[in-house]
């Protein structure tokens, strides 16, 4: 029982950064913009959050800066793909390359002189687990109520995002823009405005996901701290069928695999560590293949926004 509770707690913590980024990317993709820059935005979010925390000690300020950094990278992507009508795949990939490269560079420059200007190995104030009285004492359930603030915030963000997307006027506009921008435009919705807005909001959430890594999950900065999580996020969006509430299952699944493989490595098994490290990525491939099959059977419910990745102008044919 204790083991299950512990594993579940680690799972939720590992899944938090994934879930922030996945929900962010769902907002973006729902508007019809494919942002493959998640990995880069997450990395920059992780770095900037840690750096701000290291110098100011203010966690709140760290989160704000991570959001601004993620948001501005997303804004760049929005500008390239909406205003300049650039290829979204290329633009997104360059954001990832740029983001990871810049983060790695800054990580070796922003640190204190005593550490050779390196941020790696430094400690800063970080988010502590907060145990909710009473609820945090019940076995199994304790896993949910023994988390950090960022994870608790998701308990609100996920249902609110779902409600926003499916029950509000703005959610209706958002979904219509990603499905059929021509129709949305004919109904008086500004496609460009909606796409800019949700690409930036998406980038902010991705930035928060990065912040969780360096301020809560594995406090401290290290090179390649995201470890390809940004790419798993792209897959999780598909896994979730572009639905924020289903994203929870994906994040928990991948967080869980991470948690279990860490445990196995710590316990020392026959399976080589490299294979265990590979597990989340192998599962990604398998899950995506399965989702494609399910998607074919359940038309509409799991399919991607029809206009995903396409630039739009009303005078296009």
């Amino acid at each position, binding site marked *: 029982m204790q083991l299950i509770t512990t594993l579940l707690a680690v799972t939720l913590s590992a899944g938090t950064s994934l879930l922030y980024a996945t929900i962010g990317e769902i907002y973006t993709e729902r508007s019809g913009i494919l942002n493959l820059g998640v990995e880069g935005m997450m990395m920059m979010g992780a770095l900037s959050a840690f750096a701000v925390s290291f110098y100011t000690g203010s966690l709140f300020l760290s989160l704000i800066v991570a959001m601004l950094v993620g948001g501005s990278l997303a804004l760049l992507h929005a500008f390239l793909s909406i205003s300049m009508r650039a290829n979204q795949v290329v633009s997104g990939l360059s954001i990832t390359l740029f983001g990871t490269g810049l983060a790695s560079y800054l990580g070796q420059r922003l640190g204190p002189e005593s550490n050779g200007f390196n941020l790696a190995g430094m400690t800063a104030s970080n988010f502590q687990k907060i145990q909710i009285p009473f609820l945090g004492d019940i076995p199994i359930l304790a896993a949910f109520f023994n988390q950090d603030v960022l994870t608790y915030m998701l308990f609100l963000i996920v249902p609110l995002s779902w409600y926003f997307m499916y029950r509000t*006027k703005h959610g209706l506009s958002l*979904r219509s823009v990603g499905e*059929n921008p021509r129709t949305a*435009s*004919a109904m*008086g919705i500004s496609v460009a405005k909606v796409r800019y807005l949700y690409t930036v909001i998406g980038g902010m959430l991705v930035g928060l996901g990065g912040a969780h890594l360096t301020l809560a999950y594995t406090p401290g900065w290290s090179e390649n701290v995201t470890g390809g999580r940004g790419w798993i996020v792209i897959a999780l969006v598909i896994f979730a069928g572009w639905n924020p509430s289903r994203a929870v299952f994906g994040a928990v699944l991948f967080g869980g695999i991470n948690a279990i493989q860490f445990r196995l490595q710590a316990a020392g098994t026959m399976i080589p560590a490299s294979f265990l490290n590979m597990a989340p990525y192998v599962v990604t491939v398998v899950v995506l293949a399965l989702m494609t099959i399910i998607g074919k059977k359940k038309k*509409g419910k799991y399919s991607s926004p029809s206009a995903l990745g396409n630039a739009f102008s009303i005078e296009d044919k």
Partner: protein
Amino acid sequence: MEKSSVSTLLKMEGVTKRFPGVIANDRVDLELHNGEVLALLGENGAGKSTLMNILAGLYRPDEGFITIRGEKVSIHSPQDSMHLGIGMIHQEFMLVQTMTVAENIVLGLQDLPLIPPMAEIKRKIIELSDRYSLKVDPDRFIYELSVGEQQRVEILKLVYRGAEVLILDEPTAVLTPQESRDLNGIIKTMLSEGKSAIFITHKMDEVLSFSHRVQVLRQGKTVAACKTEGTTPQELANMMVGREILFKIKKAPYRPGEPKLILDGVTVEDPTGRPVLKDISLTIYEGEILGIAGVAGNGQTELTEVITGLQKAVSGRITLDSQDMTNKQPLHLIKAGMSHIPADRGAMGIVGDMSVADNLVMKRYRSEPIASRHGVMHATKIFGFAKKMISFFKIATPKPETLVKFLSGGNIQKTILAREIDSCGGVLIAVYPSRGLDVGATESVRNNIVAQRDKKAAVLLVSEELDELLSVADKIGVMFEGELMGIVDAATTNKEELGMMMAGMRGGNA
């Protein structure tokens, strides 16, 4: 609104709209009076839709201005247009497939509360749909609806927004005769409430039965604007095309040769295992056009696709020149001489983002003289071939290099027709070949099909227009729920007999 039929509601003056390489509208004037239906008539590519898209706020005019009730207005966006009480139903419906009817209807409404009160909205929709007899369930998803139902959603969308001027872009092109009659009734109800409508069409009978006045456009210019009363279909057709139009098709006497294409007990199932084509047996002879009639969706698509190798038969046999062609690959069938003019031009007939020349050469590029023996294509030969085809089939394109998607519907169809007829080696499968085309293009398509038959080709012509089948086909088969109700002689049958068979009665030599 007060009802005085002579007062001008809306006026467009000197409107010009240019697209790269074309002038879509050239100083067009248009006037709409209170409580009337104005028919906007013209060939494909005459600029009707462009003109209306300007009113709807989708395009901005390069010159000219618009006044409503005497006041000059500027329409910069669909939102502006809506505020002025103008609502347009586009040829391609503006509906989000994965949303419900109710969601589509309120989409983009400015005064919608943050959390839309769906129960109240649905009540209002049901109320409106009762008033105009537009039956539709607000909770269904758009992709679950038939085309006719989708159109009702479009109309509801406009009345929900309180549109006073309705613009309908070829609304009957996708409807069954029954649905067209319903639409006529709906429009009448709206007129009685003081609304006005502009009706884009290229069908003469619709102009005469729906409209009060008619304006004819040709090549972006107004050629006539007059009262509908007092004009004749012939007069309108001539104005529209700019020359005499023959409503009769000239064809040689019917002299069938050997059996060419034989279907024997062919059955096709859909992915769920439901039979969609049941035990079809038919023979098409050389020099014969076999027409296929029926309400859309009764197995016509499956019939043509199983013949052209796009769908698999679960049982039965298809032979061409006594060779077994059952479930062969399309390329095999093409090499055996089969040509196919598909129903969905955009999806199956052309590659929109490729040039007219490349589309024309799409069945010839594999072999000499277009390609070398090693498969390298000769640009000059492609160009020469395309030029020849463009002039022979009178395809109106600025250049052979123009992307096909920029051509009008009629010229896209001519491009497909040119390619398929040029490569035709004895069998032509034509599916709704004149759907959505104007009189001029229809005439040329029909003549080309008849010419193939006169050259001893076996032709299968699927059409939803009985007039077309009666004048073009030699024999007519009628399909109903995946079955062939019988095959009758086109020379001796009549619309009544065909109508009965379309409703499921067996007839002819079934």
